[in-house]
């Protein structure tokens, strides 16, 4: 089986990362921003999997990707929990209105 050129993987990963970054930067709702972060993590995962073809024996990239997925899930859980507390406290999840750092 002819291996797919890794350049394409990297392209997709980069595109995904850019989309995620764009979502994180532009979207106002905190949950959407979290979704952007997931996108960026997944872009990294794609990169990891793609580079994993150069290590067919130990497939460390794939192992790391799995690890990242787990960490991302945990991170999402924690983030959502924080988000719920934030919503309760401020009665909003719009990042525009949460300017507590500007103190």
């Amino acid at each position, binding site marked *: 089986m002819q291996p797919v050129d890794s350049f394409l993987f990297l392209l997709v990963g980069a595109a995904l990362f850019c989309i995620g970054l764009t979502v994180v930067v532009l979207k106002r709702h905190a949950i959407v921003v979290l979704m952007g972060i997931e996108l960026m993590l997944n872009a990294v995962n794609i990169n990891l999997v793609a580079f994993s073809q150069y290590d067919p024996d130990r497939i460390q990239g794939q192992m790391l990707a799995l690890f990242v997925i787990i960490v991302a899930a945990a991170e999402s859980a924690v983030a959502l929990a924080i988000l719920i507390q934030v919503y309760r406290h401020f009665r909003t999840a719009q990042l525009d209105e949460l300017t507590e*750092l500007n103190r």
Partner: protein
Amino acid sequence: MPVDTFQLLHLLTAALLGLPFAGFLVLVLASRRVSGVLAILLTTTGLALSVLLALKLPEQGVSIQANWATLSGISFPIRFSVDALAVLMLVVVHFVALLVQIYSISYLHDEPKLSRYFAYLQLFIGAMLGIVLAGNLLVMYAFWELVGLASYLLIGFYTERPAASKAAQKAFLMNRVGDIGFLIGIFLTYYYYGTLDLVLLTAKGGTVVIPTALGLCLFMGCVGKSAQFPLLTWLPDAMEGPTPVSALLHAATMVAAGIFLLARIHPLLSPDALMVIALVGTITTVWGGFSALFQTDIKKVLAFSTVSQLGLMVAAMGTGHVQGAMFHLLTHACFKAGLFLSAGAVIHAVHTQDMRLMGGLRRSLPTTFLAYTACAAALVGLPFFSGFLSKETILNGAFSWAGEHDNFLTYIVPVSLLLSSALTALYMARQWRLIFFGQYRNELIPASQAHEPDWLMRGPVVLLAIFSVGFWFSINPLSAHGSWFFRVFPLMEEITFWWMAPLSIGLVLVGGWLGFQMQDPRPDSSVVQLSLRYGFLDFFYQYLVIKPTIRLASLLNRTDHRVVDGLVDGFGVSVVVLAHIIRVVDKLGLDGFVNRIAWLVGRLGRLTRSVQNGRIQSYITAAVVGLLVVLWWIL
């Protein structure tokens, strides 16, 4: 002469000067009951000290000197000196002052400001002693002004009377006119001789050619103080003061200060100056005598008589007979003080000064009548009285002076003096008749109420009347040449005209008879008006001096308002305008600059601050951009 005698004399002189001024300070604070006794005690001490000084005085006199001011090498010492003339004046001043103060206790017994009155009298005595003892012109000038102040305070003593205040101001201002001349004279003296010391000046006077202006300027002091023509109008007004004050200041002592000054500076007077002095004295004598003629106020007659007698003394000075003038000063002090005090007794009895409301008082006031008659006889110059002796001396001197001059016109002076003594008899006889003879003419106060005052007032009057008798001054009643006075102050030449005594006695008798018989012309006749208003001298001053001065003052006032105030206002306005301009420049320029910087910094701050806006997304953006920049830079 032992040293301790000198020390005693110095001590005496200092005590004499110090006592009255200390008395002034004490009496200002004293209560009115003790003030009179205290003042009399002080003056008695002064009299005793002066008599002691007179007895102990050495031939050459005594002097005290102290340095006062030294200006760039020129020093002005304070110097007091005692000589025979000074001692004579000391005794006269103390004697008259003592009698006047005793008299005042009774005369002013219900005056509330009594302690102040006696304090002023002490101030006057101190100042007068200062003039008498002054050893140089500067010291004399200082005390001269002090005497003017005392006179001002005493004339205006009845502060509740506006006329008294006005009279005091008039006296003070007219004296000031004379004093300015005196001061200029002192400057001139220093300029020409380099010293103001009277002894040194007397020594130099004979040797150096004397400028006439100097003598005339110094004489101006005498014109003011001794009420000479043309500054004589303050003296009649000064009669607004209490009668004892008139007796002491404005008859016996203060007005004599001018004569005393002339005696001191006599060597500094050039022949021309002496001629002017003689003429001024003559004019004053006649003017004063004529003005006394138709006065209705008892004190004003005496005031003009004083003016007239002072003129006589000045004329004697002008004719060079210092001793005669000083002798007349001495006798005049006694009988004129006596006259004033008698007049005070009359006023005390009938409560008016208007002679038209008196008459026939010889029955109710016998003592006063006799004393008045004795003093008046001395004033007109009847033989056996003191005035006769001094007047004869002066007239003899004046005739011999005129004889020395080639010019026939100089006889105007002695002849006028002779006629003025007849004039004296005329007005004194008229006054005598109006007060003591005829019918009592006042309907408001019955004649039975007029009674003699107590002995505190009668005593001094009687004593002064006794001293008006010629016996005290000369054993020979018809000539003063044997007098003790001329043994102390020897006459330069002793010319006696045989026709002088009979002529003057005849003139006096004729004048007296006329005055006694004469009925006053109608009050609105021009002669009476001319006499009453003393030759319209005050109108002359009113229109020629006071009115133009006031007009000049108001002109200056207007100029001040328009020009000077305008200048000041303009300056003020321009400053305000300038201030506005500066304010605008400040606001737009400096403040604008400062504000602009502040605004810029604020803007910059806001710009910087906007980065930290609290939006997490912009932070992320920044982080990403930064990362990209770093990456771009590294790769």
